[in-house]
């Protein structure tokens, strides 16, 4: 049974290495984030398998849970950061002295393209 668990762990590791292709080559940054997320989720499973092999699961569960939580937060933060970086920065709204000409209008970036059509 132990050999079986080791084999499963090695197989997960190999598949994670394969997913790394998407992280290295992903045409857009968000593809890379997606690949990292997949690898991170599987790392939590791998940690627990290692814990089972070394017969200290109750210790490794804490590590796995902390890892899963931080991986979740990392993914959301990276996605948010990418989203903000890829949008044009809003001009600062000045509220100081009134300008002699018309006040500058703040232009909001267009957020939705029409990529949708009804099924």
């Amino acid at each position, binding site marked *: 049974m132990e050999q079986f668990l080791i084999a499963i762990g090695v197989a997960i590791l190999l598949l994670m290495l394969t997913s790394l292709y998407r992280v290295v080559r992903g045409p857009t940054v968000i593809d890379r984030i997606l690949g990292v997320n997949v690898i991170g989720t599987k790392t939590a499973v791998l940690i627990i398998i290692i814990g089972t092999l070394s017969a200290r699961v*109750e210790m490794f569960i804490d590590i796995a849970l902390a890892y899963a939580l931080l991986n979740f937060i990392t993914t959301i933060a990276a996605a948010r950061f990418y989203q903000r970086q890829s949008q044009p920065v809003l001009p600062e709204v000045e509220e100081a002295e009134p300008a002699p000409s018309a006040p500058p209008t703040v232009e909001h970036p267009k957020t939705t393209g029409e*990529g*949708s*059509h*009804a*099924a």
Partner: protein
Amino acid sequence: MAAVVTFCVMFAFWVVMSGKLDLFHLGMGVMASALVSWLSRDLLFSGHTKTLGGTLGEIGRFLRYAGWLFWQVVLANVHIAGLSLSPRAMERIDPRIIRFKTVLKTDFARFVLANSITLTPGTVTVRIQDDTFYVHAINPQAAGDLAGDAVGGPGEMERWVAWIFEGGKR
């Protein structure tokens, strides 16, 4: 009231995690749960107005829904695995983004619906703008399952969620 329930849930979680039942650790657990239920008093049950009985009914209905949802998750995984391992995958996918308005009122019900859509075959929730859902469907069948007969009418899943949280008919 919400703070008390939060405290009980948090303390139960602490006991399960800790597994030590001596006075010192239980005391630490009481302090930790009290601190968290004060810090996050408006998080776990925010916008929740039901009575205790209503909440229990909600949980019971949700468990029945969870059984159905788990079966859908299995179907979804078989579907996507078949799709990505099939040699003719490129011919079998025809992605599109569909849009529909939901009848659900509360944010939490919308959250449950959105995550259910993400977990079920062939669809991923892309965006929620107020009551409008944008859903990416990998092929037209998946889109049809979601939206029912007419686009805009509630699909099967939406009826389930409405039944859980708003007592509608299933």
